[in-house]
């Protein structure tokens, strides 16, 4: 088994419950192909760095899972044919994963790496990039 992460971008016009439903559908798809979902996380609506599909915003959904290469092909195929998906990116995190071991070890999933779009206090000084406010407008 290999470990993958997929981040995909949904249209901001999609109602939240539909987005939730869609991410659920993808998770189910992983399970139906002998895969294991490790994390599924809705990053929420964020401002984009550039316009995608006539929109400056988008909803990011992150999925971390175990599976074989054909599973990735299947997931990407579904993402590709859905009009609400603006962008997606899959990254292989690990080539050979011991499934039982990986499932038991709860790796800390930190939200600091997935900074929230708003209503959050800014990162500690020093790490603050010079243009951070651009991303949260």
């Amino acid at each position, binding site marked *: 088994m290999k470990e993958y992460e997929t981040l995909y*971008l949904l249209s901001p016009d999609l109602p939240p419950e539909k987005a939730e439903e869609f991410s659920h559908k993808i998770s189910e798809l992983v399970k139906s192909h002998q895969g294991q979902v490790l994390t599924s996380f809705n990053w929420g609506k*964020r401002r984009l*760095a550039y316009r995608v599909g006539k929109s400056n915003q988008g909803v990011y959904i992150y999925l971390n899972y175990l599976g074989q290469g054909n599973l990735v092909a299947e997931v990407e195929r579904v993402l590709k044919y859905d009009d609400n998906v603006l*962008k997606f990116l899959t990254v292989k995190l690990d080539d050979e994963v011991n499934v039982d071991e990986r499932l038991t070890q709860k790796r800390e999933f930190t939200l600091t790496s*997935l900074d929230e779009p708003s209503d959050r206090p800014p990162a500690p000084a020093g790490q603050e990039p010079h243009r951070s406010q651009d*991303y949260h407008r």
Partner: protein
Amino acid sequence: MERHRDRDRDRDRDDRGGMKRRSFGRRKACRFCTDKEVKADFKNPRLLSYFITERGRIIPRRISGTCALHQRDLTTAVKQARIMALLPFASTQR
């Protein structure tokens, strides 16, 4: 013998001239070597934005001080983040 003398003279010249040794203010340290917890990850645009210019270009490691290994990880992460519209390919013209 000749060679030895030459070598000594060269060394003297170096010290006297001081031309070859430029003094740098501060040795820049690699951000990812100093903090092993921090990984260059495309999902962390806030961190990555520290390593790109205002126009969205990746800052060379001779400026940022990032080591070769981590600069490689960094460029990959920045490029992945660009694909996902987390970072700009190019932002605003001059």
